[in-house]
């Protein structure tokens, strides 16, 4: 059976306009883990954005000390107690949502922005470009990501920015590889061939057709990765290789409270709980997204 196609817009694209996305959302709305995961993320995002309004002591949240009030246990004045410099832990945890969410999203987005185009082009063109990309990503992938981030951060000088840069450098190869694999599997689909025959230029093919189909696995991967990056940023901060005082960073707060974890458990406990909750949110959402949007890799 043949189909006459007069213009590129008539090219059929699998998954396009079949309502898969809107169907997916409807399914998601009914799944409890999606609601919980999404809810957690939205809540924490809201907290991060509204921090100056939500925090009972916003200046302390940013880092202002209040030495006479230090090491106080949770009370009606300070729901989560105060830390070693007298700062309200609840406010610090609220403001800590900003670096946690901000940095991890930035890292994931940047890794995607760097890796996906490279991967797509390499996968589509093949040849020496593909080989080169494979070798380069091999170098980066030969490393446990966190170790690479630690070394880079230590050498460049510990700061949130350098930690973020280090994590982007560690993470982009995964997306490049993913994009490359997806592109390669799509390369020989009939609709791509048809587009080529029609003279549709490569950039358009890549963006309109390849990318649209690659979005799903990349989105799933990104959601789960966001959780992993949050853990990584927290871990680096715990070592002292990421955010520095007086930045309200959850990992830093856990490290700070470690010396008094028995007598003043609230200083380490609540920031740790915050990291756990946010990562849980991303993992729950990522699981459900994977189940719904990409059933081939279900249960991974």
């Amino acid at each position, binding site marked *: 059976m043949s189909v006459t196609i007069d213009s590129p817009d008539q090219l059929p694209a699998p998954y396009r306009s079949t309502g898969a996305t809107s169907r997916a959302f409807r399914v998601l709305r009914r799944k409890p883990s999606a609601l919980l995961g999404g809810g957690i993320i939205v809540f924490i995002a809201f907290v991060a954005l509204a921090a100056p309004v939500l925090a009972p002591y916003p200046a302390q949240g940013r880092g202002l000390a209040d030495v006479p009030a230090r090491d106080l246990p949770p009370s009606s004045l300070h729901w989560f107690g105060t830390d070693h410099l007298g700062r309200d832990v609840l406010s610090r945890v609220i403001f800590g949502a900003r670096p946690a969410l901000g940095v991890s999203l930035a890292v994931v987005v940047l890794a995607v922005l760097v890796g996906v185009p490279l991967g797509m082009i390499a996968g589509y063109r093949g040849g020496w470009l593909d080989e080169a990309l494979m070798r380069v990503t091999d170098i980066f992938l030969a490393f446990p990501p966190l170790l690479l981030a630690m070394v880079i951060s230590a*050498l460049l000088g510990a700061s949130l920015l350098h930690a973020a840069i280090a994590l982007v450098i560690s993470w982009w190869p995964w997306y490049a590889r993913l994009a490359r694999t997806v592109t390669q599997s799509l390369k020989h689909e009939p609709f791509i061939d048809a587009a080529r025959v029609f003279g549709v230029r490569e950039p358009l093919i890549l963006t309109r057709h390849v990318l649209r189909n690659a979005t799903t696995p990349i989105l799933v991967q990104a959601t789960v990765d966001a959780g992993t990056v949050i853990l990584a940023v927290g871990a680096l901060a715990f070592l002292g290789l990421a955010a520095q005082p007086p930045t309200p960073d959850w990992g830093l707060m856990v490290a700070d409270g470690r010396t008094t974890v*028995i007598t003043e458990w609230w200083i380490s406990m609540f920031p740790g709980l915050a990291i756990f909750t946010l990562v849980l949110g991303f993992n729950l959402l990522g699981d459900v997204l994977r189940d719904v949007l990409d059933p081939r890799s279900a*249960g991974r």
Partner: protein
Amino acid sequence: MSRWVVRRLLTSLLTLFFITTITFALARVVPSNPAVVYIGPLARPAEIARVTKELGLDRPLYVQYVDYMRDLVHGNWGTSLATKQPVLGGIASRLPATLELILVAMAMAVAVGIPLGVLAAHRKGKAADTGARVGAVVGISMPVFWLGLLLQVLASQWLNILPPTSRQSLDVAVLHPVTKITGFLLVDALVTGDWSGLQDAATHILLPAITLAAYPAALVTRMTRAAMLDVLGQDYVRTARTFGLGERLVLWQLALRNAIPSTLTVVGLSLAYLLTGSFFVEIVFDWPGIGQYATNALLNLDYPAIMGITILGATAFLVINFVVDVLQARLDPRVRLQ
């Protein structure tokens, strides 16, 4: 197959070469005088100048690089600036502690994860399944350093049933040490019949191993469950059931055997996580392994040691990935070797 192996080996070596070069360059570019790391912060300029010459740090960078690479190939990984001990020796002496921790954690993860995964798959949709899945997603979301702190406070401080830190009691370590055969305390103590040494080593490794095992245990649970669900639905299993083969037989022998390849992937993935996860466990529990060595090296900007850690990390990762890929190819011929 062998052509693939050879190509893989070559690319791995090339990768190692690049990583070493990049780390070398980075370490020299950043502001920090290696001579100061060597001689200590209070040394006067005359001393620093003398040491700079002694260590050959005044030679052009490419000369130092060539020397370093040449030494590396001959098995000389340089000398740590901070401890004056050979880097290779330092890493080798600490490797058994980390390896033991990782292996015990992995064993725990598998011992807990596989039965849980099977149970969850078998009772899909019921309470046990939900419980296992919730436990698993909690396990992969838990920051390892926080979990370590929690366990330490709980088991050590509040309940006081386990030692909070270290690999051995100092009494045992100094006065009646375990005879060193493999470097793995548990193995050595068992083999030499040193029961008090075995007890000592076991109590000390319990908390760190549990902390480290949480994440891979969760992964293994999820993977096993998924693989089991896949397999349990397949025709031959249904056939086996209709033929009246006992449920237990079906579950454990046919299904599990087929779930192992995918579990293997997870084990491979986890080993990579365990390498870096062990750093944090070693810090919280003062475990004398590679993690401590690496952290000291990074904080001191002790660049020969940093190089050593980098090479070790990359090599370990490459080897693990290689082994996992080979095993997968062997076990599941459907897997394409790219």
